[in-house]
Structure formats: C-alpha cells, structure tokens
C-alpha cells in the first residue's frame, strides 16, 4: 500500500504496476490533471501545498476505509505538491482487485475522500492573479475527540 505526498511527477502506470498481482483480474487507475481552465478563468499553473505528515496519515485512513468497505488492499495513492503545469498529474490512484466492481469503487472512493479529508490546498494562478481554492471546509467529528484516547 502506497500513500504518499511527492514533489516529483507522478507515474500512474508505475502505481498500477505496484498494485498488480497474480490474483488481480482488475486494475483501475485515476489521474487528476491540472486543467487549463477553472471556474471560468484561464489557469496558467497551480501550486499545491500539503500538511504533509497529516496528509499522509489521512491517505492511510482512506486506504483503511477502502479495505474495510470494499475488501481492496492493493491500493496506491500519490499526491503531488509544489508548482504544477497544465496537464501535470496532481493526484494518481491505482487499485487492484479480483473483480472489477471493487477496483472501480476503491478508486472512486479514494478520490472522493481525498477531496473531503486530506489537508492539501491548491493555489490557482491565472491572468487575473492567484487565489487559494477553497473547495471543502472540513468539520471535526462532533461527538468524540479524535486523535487522543478518551480519559
């Protein structure tokens, strides 16, 4: 299982190769690419920032959720930080499973949850300047205090 924040280009097929095995009949990958436009504006490039230690911890949490929900343990996730150009892969995911349904669901769940719980931010640079994009305000679980045992 690979869950990491990287500062170099992401090779999605290398991630796929990591999750393949003789039992796996289905490999699904997802790549999130930097687009040349966003919310009606032309984008020249992006800068991604991460709270690295927590981001990798949350990626592992997502992987654990996927193992529990879909029985998929062969999973690789990389998210890139730093300056990215149009077409660069910002996030790469690969999942492998005996059957396709679980492989697809694992990959889809991973990207959906990354956008919900992993502390990573992107700054979009366009013709009209730069702005930190705010897509998902994270809410703390209300009842308990995660991160420390109950006293």
């Amino acid at each position: 299982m690979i869950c990491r924040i990287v500062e170099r280009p992401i090779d999605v097929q290398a991630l796929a190769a990591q999750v393949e095995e003789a039992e796996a009949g289905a490999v699904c990958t997802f790549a999130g690419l930097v687009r040349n436009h966003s919310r009606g504006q032309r984008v020249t490039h992006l800068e991604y920032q991460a709270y690295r230690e927590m981001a990798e911890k949350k990626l592992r949490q997502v992987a654990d959720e996927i193992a529990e929900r879909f029985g998929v343990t062969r999973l690789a996730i990389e998210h890139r930080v730093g300056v990215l150009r149009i077409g660069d892969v910002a996030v790469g995911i690969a999942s492998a499973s005996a059957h396709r349904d679980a492989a697809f669901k694992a990959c889809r769940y991973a990207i959906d949850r990354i956008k919900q719980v992993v502390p990573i931010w992107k700054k979009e640079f366009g013709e009209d300047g730069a702005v930190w994009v705010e897509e998902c305000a994270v809410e703390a679980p209300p009842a308990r205090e995660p991160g420390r045992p109950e006293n």
Partner: protein
Amino acid sequence: MQVRLKCFAWAREVTGEEEISVEIPEGGTVADLRARLEERFPVFAGRMESIAVSVNQEFSGDKARIRPGDEVALIPPISGG
C-alpha cells in the same frame, strides 16, 4: 501555555508564518485558541467557521483540549485532488 500553531494556504498568508506561537490558558481548548486568533488577526473573525483545527493530526472540535506539546494546525477549506 504556548501553542505552536501550523498555518497553511490562506491562513499562512494571513499570519505570514508557517508556524506561529499562540498563548492560551493552561488546560485550554480549541475554542480558546480560536478566540485568541480572532483577537490577533481580525480577518479570521469572519472566516473562523470554515477553518478547521487539527490536534495531533486529527480534526478536532471546539471542546477538544490542547495539551503542552500537542501538534496543532489551522486547516482552511481544502482543495486537494
């Protein structure tokens, strides 16, 4: 008690630092931290609802206590992926 507070993205631009030190009462909570931040950086006041706080790398509600040495961070709305 001094809390070392990591700042990211928009919050980092507001504070001007990757990490700042914030004084809260001994045995204080995330709510105390938020209150001190709003005093020191008024621009946070209108935005505090959308900013999460993590304690030891877990998102933590306002009642969560902060202990000496805890790793605390301000998490503005995320946009990974």
